[in-house]
């Protein structure tokens, strides 16, 4: 069999290299071949040397076009970690934070989570930021019994990944349902049109809003757009034909500002409604007068006079010289919840930490009081905000 | 016996007739040359016969079968092979592989066979390889079998194109200016080679400007001018055809032609 010798040799070399590299990796992992998947990383003997610190990680996009969300999330977690380290750490141990970039890519999110868990030996992760990241990183964390808490992945199904996966953000269903009810009952709006971004976030919001709005009022038209689009005039011209009183925009502030502006330009006079994707000073910057009067749901309100919120805003501004957004606030709260649970678990990870996390009840955070439902999803209050004179004010 | 018969062939490009009602017959076993000045429509005729273009009007029968609208690869399979005016070899492939590719339409291994490499496949491969070496030997390129085709000198590239055409096991070979760019010695070798091909029973249709070559080996010559056939007959007749000499050959060539 000399015919394909070159090929065969190359194939063998590749196979051997793969196995050799796999072998090299072996000592560093605790149970890579799956034979002892029950072993807990915090029990590993190698942990001994680094027992004086508690390691946690974050994953999220720090580069790329979704970097805004990832950087805010990382900053929020850093503020929480700084706070606890300044206060003497957890049981005398300092908390060390490892942040990994995912570029918003789910493959990289899985790699990043694997690195944090297997190389850096973190006991918990705050993240991912985008739902798709959490979808691939979550199962890895869950298998490794590492607690993971996402502060912004709103897609349905994330808490179902496993018992180690928690979520501290407003669920799309709750937000949309409550706003539909509020708009119909409290604002007296009757005819709704919906425009949603065709991704997991927009679709979840739209489904929930449409269901509730049909119950309490009327939905005259539903339109959609793709991520990154700029021209909504075609959809808006169509919507205008139906003469709605309100337009629910299930999407993010960049597009929402353009939609509001283009509807104003087309003479479409409607009450603009939205969800937490609206919450950014950029909404007003980009939308100008057209977003005046817009009403939306949110989980955080930076101008809330309460002391905890103002302390956070002050600390954040000092550290990063910018206003914290909702991502930062929710990440901060997620980190606080996590750190409290770590403290209760005496710095242990794994099962002990999972149990403590699940026990969290009415945790007083800056995004409201948080408890976890049985599946690890946060149950918390919803704030309704309105744009008035270019500023956000709290309606409820 | 008539091998190929084209009738009333007309090809119009953007309003201009590259060929205008041309009839052509090729008898089995003959060497027919196609001459005429540049732009007379010689290569266009080749392209019609080999299926590269479909004529605006007219018909072509090969072995009593209509081949208009047949694809080039099917025409090749029926037994027509060609070389190109501007050499078109598979430059990155070896000389041997070029000839092996020539036998494509005479072999049948598919993807599954290729992956499994059954004994039938190996047998076919061996056969193809041996035949390719035989053909290379025949054209005198066996020493260069492993070279990349693009690295061959010009004359040898022409011969390789011929070898590749021969590998398709054609009955009719269309050679488009095979001697272009060759030195006299190479041309002589080529004449010998075409003669040998003819001896093997191959019918040859030749486009050539080298009058020595044309007059030397053609059994019949057909002359095109501005897309029209102006003469058709044995070399001695063409040589003295006033119409050809006047309309096409010109003074300088007249001497050349008559000297042959």
């Amino acid at each position: 069999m000399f015919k394909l010798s070159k090929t065969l040799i190359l194939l063998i070399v590749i196979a051997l290299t793969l196995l050799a590299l796999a072998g090299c990796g072996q000592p560093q992992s605790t149970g890579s071949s799956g034979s002892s998947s029950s072993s807990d990383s915090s029990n590993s003997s190698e942990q001994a040397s680094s027992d004086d610190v508690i390691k946690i990680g974050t994953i999220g996009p720090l580069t790329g076009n979704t970097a805004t969300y990832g950087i805010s999330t990382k900053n929020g977690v850093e503020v929480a970690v700084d706070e606890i380290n300044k206060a003497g750490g957890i049981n005398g141990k300092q908390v060390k934070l490892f942040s990994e970039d995912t570029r918003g890519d789910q493959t990289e999110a899985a790699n990043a989570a694997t690195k944090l868990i297997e190389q850096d030996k973190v006991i918990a992760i705050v993240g991912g930021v985008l739902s798709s990241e959490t979808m691939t990183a979550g199962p890895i964390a869950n298998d490794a019994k590492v607690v993971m808490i996402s502060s912004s992945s709103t897609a349905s199904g994330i808490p179902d990944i496993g018992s180690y996966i928690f979520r501290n953000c407003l669920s799309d269903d709750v937000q949309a349902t409550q706003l539909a009810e509020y708009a119909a009952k409290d604002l007296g709006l009757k005819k709704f049109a919906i425009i949603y971004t065709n991704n997991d976030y927009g679709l979840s919001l739209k489904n929930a809003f449409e269901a509730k709005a049909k119950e309490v009022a009327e939905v005259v038209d539903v339109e959609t757009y793709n991520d990154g689009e700029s021209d909504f005039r075609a959809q808006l011209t169509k919507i205008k034909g139906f003469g709605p009183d309100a337009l629910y925009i299930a999407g993010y502030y960049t597009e929402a500002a353009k939609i509001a502006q283009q509807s104003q330009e087309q003479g479409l006079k409607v009450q603009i409604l939205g969800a937490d994707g609206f919450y950014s000073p950029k909404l007003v910057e980009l939308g100008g007068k057209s977003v005046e009067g817009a009403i939306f749901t949110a989980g955080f309100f930076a101008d809330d006079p309460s002391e905890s919120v103002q302390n956070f805003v002050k600390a954040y501004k000092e550290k990063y010289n910018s206003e914290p957004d909702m991502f930062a606030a929710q990440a901060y709260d997620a980190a606080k919840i996590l750190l409290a649970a770590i403290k209760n678990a005496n710095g242990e990870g794994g099962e002990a930490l999972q149990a403590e996390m699940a026990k969290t009840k009415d945790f007083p955070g800056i995004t409201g009081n948080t408890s976890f439902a049985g599946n690890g999803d946060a149950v918390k209050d919803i704030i309704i905000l309105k744009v008035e004179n270019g500023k956000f004010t709290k309606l409820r | 016996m008539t091998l190929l018969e084209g009738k009333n062939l007309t090809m119009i490009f953007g309003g201009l007739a590259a060929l205008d009602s041309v009839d052509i017959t090729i008898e089995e076993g003959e060497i027919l040359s196609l001459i005429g000045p540049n732009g007379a429509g010689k290569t266009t005729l080749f392209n019609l016969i080999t299926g590269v273009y479909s004529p605006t009007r007219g018909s072509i029968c090969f072995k009593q079968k209509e081949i208009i609208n047949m694809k080039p690869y099917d025409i090749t399979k029926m037994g027509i092979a060609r070389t190109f005016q501007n050499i078109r070899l598979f430059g990155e492939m070896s000389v041997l592989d070029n000839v092996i590719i020539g036998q494509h339409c005479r072999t049948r291994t598919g993807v599954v066979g290729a992956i499994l490499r059954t004994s039938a496949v190996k047998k076919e491969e061996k056969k193809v390889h041996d035949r390719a070496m035989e053909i290379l030997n025949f054209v005198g390129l066996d020493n260069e079998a492993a070279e990349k085709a693009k690295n061959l000198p010009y004359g040898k590239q022409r011969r390789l194109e011929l070898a590749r055409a021969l590998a398709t096991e054609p009955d009719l070979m269309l050679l488009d200016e095979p001697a272009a760019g060759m030195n006299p010695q190479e041309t002589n070798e080529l004449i010998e080679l075409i003669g040998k091909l003819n001896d093997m029973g191959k019918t040859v249709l030749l486009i050539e400007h080298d009058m020595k070559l044309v007059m030397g080996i053609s059994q019949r010559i057909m002359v095109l001018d501005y897309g029209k056939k102006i003469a058709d007959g044995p070399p001695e007749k063409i040589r003295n055809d006033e119409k050809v000499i006047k309309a096409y050959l010109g003074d300088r060539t007249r001497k050349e032609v008559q000297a042959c």
Partner: protein
Amino acid sequence: MRMNYYLQVLTVLGINIILAVSLNLISGYTGQLSLGHATFMGIGAYTATLLTLKLHVPFLLSLIFGAAVAALFGFIIGVPTLRLKGDYLAIATLGFGEIMKNILLNMKITGGPMGLRGIPKVTNIYIVAVAVVIVIFSLNRIMISRVGKSFIAIREDELAAEAMGINTTNYKILAFVIGAFYAGIAGGLYAFLFRYINPNNFGFMKSIEILCMVVLGGMGNTAGAILGAALLTVLPEFLRSVSPVISQYRMVFYGLLLVIMMIVRPQGLLSGTSFYPRYPRRLSVEKSAGKGGQ
């Protein structure tokens, strides 16, 4: 089911190798520029996933069936578009990719933008290594055969290939079908590794990433495609561990690398070296004893 970090990266690398060598078959060997290769990966991934999730088909069967469906799409896309040449083909494949992504985003069964989750984790380094070996091995067998030589002939000179009796349209479609089949396998492996897929994984940027692997290593060279895949998989991960500051700039470097690469060595890193023997050694060129002529 845990996998250490290096194994994880290696597994991803294996999948990328399959993608790169399969695109290399289409673009490198056959010379048909495709900007929609990730589409085939996506079709494989979705088919395999749906078969497993909805019909509980076993892994291996889903994987193969997914690849078969991808191949079918390669055929469906190939038949009308392969009449187009060069840049037009490229833009048509890009268009088909975007259309497929749009359809995946709007279909109920694919979960729309939510994607599909809860896929069992089956893919591991051993399965991927076996798949890589099988793919490369079979690809080489194809390339040394009459079929592979026809692919190269089409790349070298389509018209001459037709004159040699090669049905170029059929062979181009065949290249697409085989390439799509392999990409479908890669897609299935991907789905069963990450346990979650959504349409955005298989968009234009992924296609470009695969193309860059092929180009970086050297078009028309299997070893080059492997090297390209290795570089573009491992390099970003390497930069991740070197320094977060550099990591911030890595996409900028990535762009620069492509430009510099094209200027300094446009034929790719490994061009000129041949990975597969052109013909089996048993049949290698020897002075034929046969006499010329008949």
